[in-house]
Each structure stands twice: as C-alpha cells, then as structure tokens.
C-alpha cells in the first residue's frame, strides 16, 4: 500500500517542484520586463517606489523625462494608469531651461508632492516624491 503511494507521490513531488521553479522564473521574467533600461545620457527620470506586483494595473519601474511627461488614464499620456482613482489627464512635468516643473491638471483627487497636495506649478528637485493615489514616484535628476 505504502509503496504504491510513495511511487505515485514521487512523480507529484517532481511536478510540484518544477511548477514552483517555473512560476518563480515567470515572476522574475515579468519583473525584468517591467524594467526599462535607463540610457546613460538621460539622467532625469521618474522611478516607481511601489513594487510593480503590489499594484493591480500595468506600470513600469522607470519613466525617463525628455521635455515633458504626462500621466493620466487616457491612452495618449506618456504614463497610462488604468486606475479609476486617476483622472483622464492627471499631472504633467515640463522642462524649462534645465529645470523641471510639476503641474496638476485639475485632477479630481489631486497630486501630492512630498506629502502635500499641490495647486500651483511646483519646481522639482532630485529626491522629490510624487504621489497619485496609491502610486508613488521618486523624481531623480542627476547632473
């Protein structure tokens, strides 16, 4: 009796171990796919602070900023977030003479810079934290 069970189980164990390895590799694959390589000449970018797998929608870990960057729910934004909390056009970051400015686009739930809701156009500096709902970004700008 035991022998039959042991023989049956050894196949099940091997299948489970390989499924486990497969699912971990899959998670790692998703993790790597979410990373976007930051090119060395572009040192200004937004970095996601949340873990990608803790958010229920698709988002990348890095977004580089050229001359402007917009975030919203609609498809033509640079960062598209399919979260009902986010407005169609939520905020934008504009570059002007080597400085970066954050502007809220009259969103329903607001944009928070370092914990405080913004109403005006704010100048960004390295290390600022931008929050929209649950999503938190770190603003990185290196010379």
């Amino acid at each position, binding site marked *: *009796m*035991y*022998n039959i*069970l*042991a*023989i049956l*189980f*050894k*196949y*099940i*164990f*091997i299948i*489970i*171990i*390989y*499924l*486990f*390895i497969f*699912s*971990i*590799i*899959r*998670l*790692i694959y*998703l993790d790597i796919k979410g990373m976007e390589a930051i090119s060395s000449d572009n040192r200004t970018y937004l970095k996601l*602070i949340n*873990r990608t*797998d803790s958010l*229920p929608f698709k988002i990348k870990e890095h977004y580089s900023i050229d001359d402007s960057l917009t975030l919203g729910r609609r498809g033509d934004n640079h960062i598209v977030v399919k979260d009902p909390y986010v407005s169609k056009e939520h905020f934008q970051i504009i570059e002007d003479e080597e400085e970066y400015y954050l502007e809220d686009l009259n969103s329903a739930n607001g944009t928070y810079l*370092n914990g405080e809701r913004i109403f005006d156009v704010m100048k960004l500096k390295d*290390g600022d*934290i931008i929050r929209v709902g649950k999503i938190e970004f*770190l603003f990185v700008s290196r010379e």
Partner: protein
Amino acid sequence: MFNKAIRGKSPRSLLFIFEVLSLFLLFVYQNTRVDRFTIMTGIGLILIISLSNYLLIKISSGDNYIFLIVTMLISIGTIMIYRIDEGLGIKQLIWLSMGILLFFMTYFFVKYIKGWQNWIYLYVGASYILFFMTFILGSRKKGAINWINLGNFSFQPAEITKLLIVFILSSYYANISKWKEIKNASYYLMGVIYSFILLLFLQRDLGMAMIFYLIFISIQFIYEEDRKLIIYNIGLLIIGGIIGYTMFDHVKIRFQAWINPWKYIDRQGYQITQSLFAIAEGGFFGKGLGLGHPYFIPEVYTDFIFSAICEEMGIFTGIGIIMLYMILVYRGFKIAISQEETFFRILALGISILFGVQSLIILGGVLKMIPLTGITLPFISYGGSSILSSFIALGILQVSSEEISLRRVQDEQRD
C-alpha cells in the same frame, strides 16, 4: 485575468501543497506509530513557513523571491531529514524556527543601525578572536578542529567568520578612496585574508578555506583596481595547492579519493562511492520517499543529503534543487546590480557568491566533479550553525534588496 491569478500567489500555494502532501506521505509511512510529535512537527513546519512568507511581504519593500526560494529548499531538506531520522527532523525544525527568527532580527538590525561600513577593525578583530577560540576550546570532529562545545550546544565559528569576511571586504572596497591614502593597503587586506585561510588550513577545514578564497578572489576581481593582485592570488593558489598536496596527507587523500575512489573503496573512497551508488540507484524519478537506503551513505544528514534526496526523489529533484540555487544566486546578483549604496552592493554580491560557491563545492563534491570537502549544503543540510548563518546571510541580502539611498532621502525629509 489568468495572469493576475498566477502573479505572486502561485508559488506560495505550490509550496503549501508540496508540504501538505509530503507530510501526508510521512504519516502513511509510519502508519503503525503516528505520534503527536510527527503531527506537531508537520503543522509547525507549515505554520512557520507560511507565516514568515506572509510577514515578510508586509514588512519588507524589497525582494520577496529569495525567501520563497529558500523556504522551498528548507521544506525539501526538512522532509528528507525527518524521513531519515525523526529526532533530527524535530531538532532541525527548532533550528529552522530559530533561523527564521534570526533572519527577521538581522533584517531589523542591519536596516536600522547605521555605519556598518566603518567598523572594519571590529570585523577583523572578531574573526581572529573566533579563530583563537576554536584553537583553544575546539574539539576534533571528523579530522577537522572546527567545533566549539559549550555544554550541550556546539557550534562552528567558521560559519560566522565567513559572514565577517564578506563584511570586511565590503567595508574595505566601499571606503576604497580612504584606504588608498595608505600605501599598499590592498596588500594588507590580502595578508589578513590569507592569514584566515592559513588558520582554516591548520584546522583542516579545507571546504571553508576554499569558500573564503573564492569569495575573496571574486570580490577582488570585481572591485580591485590593481589587477596585478589577482594574478598574484591565482599564483598563490597554485603554489599553495602544490605545497598542500605534497606536505599534508589529508589533502593528498582527498585528491586521490577524487581521482579514483574505486581503488580505495573500503577507506577514503567509501563516502564518495556510496554517494554515487545512491544517486545511480535513484534514477530519473527516484525510489520514492522512504523506499531507498540512505543509511548506507555516511554523513547523510549533512554533507551527503543531496545523494539521499537524489536516491529517493530522483535526479529530477536534484536538478530542481540546483536550479533553485541558480535562481537564488541570480536574484542576489540582480539585487547587487540595482543597489546604489556601494557597501550594500558588495555585501549582496559577497553573499550571493557565498551561497553559490558553498552549494557548488558540496554538490560538485558529492557528484565527484571536484575533490570532496566536507561542508554543508546551505538551507538543506542538517546543522545548527550552518542554518543560522545562512539565515543571517539571507537577512542581510533582504536588506540589500531595498532602496537604502531612497530611505535616506525620506529620512532627511522627515528631519
């Protein structure tokens, strides 16, 4: 939708199914005398592993795969040890609980105490103290003086020293600009590390000496600007190997047993031939849990646990274990690459190399790929100090996987 269901939860549930099934099998295996202990051990194992996996996600914002991989390894290990010897299985479970507790403690210690990179003299001093303690208090076990007995409790100081060596190297190369002001600082570092290796050699702990050497040369290879030193190191290894082979009998015996174990099957080659017999006996899918003969293999709980697993669960499980170690080391390297604080970057790198090298040396040894040296297979083998030090290392790796520079930014803003 399917993607979402698989994300995150799937490996944990697979782990859970694996544990439940194997425990069920163990109950059937000892059906005549199912006692309270078996049930308690089983429930304890499942509880500890699920709880700590759950807690970690809540506590840490870093990597959550490394701990998951490790819990799979410890599940396989504990089940195998329990099947061979019930008493040891229960002891192993106690060690594991302590190890996991230590993992969380290390996590908080390393995370909230600042200034780890400045205490290089402390690490060097502590390592020497541990070595001399071993010489004074140590007892000889299996030909090597590497155990200290304190009452019922015995531990292997080299298990702690191998973590200290990673700390020494990290704090040295993280402050390289400061050390450069001293002339030939890298030679002093080399001297310190070689003195450790020599002391281990005198204790006849060859496996540990090999781990130290490989960690040292890997980190030196990545961070040392003076490339001559690496060539010196390799040269010294070759000279040391030749001297060791000709002067010390125990090195010679290991080497001969590796080249042709069949010639010395009744003495030096006994362990390795038994291990090979066991692996061959298992075949692709193994004999089935409880149907093999692991008692023929010497040191089956510690060094040769891999052979026992291969015999009863098949070479496919063996390959699976090797793959798990590969993913673990890969994750460690990825953590090191994405870490921006140099000290923690080197620390993560050193620990990944430690896991990689340690499993490589013992797996290579039991498979007769390289000369056999007795060290434990991290997270699978039975053994208190080995389990504890592996979990401390894992805790450090967990801290390194978080954004330390980011946390500093947040702290500054709060002040």
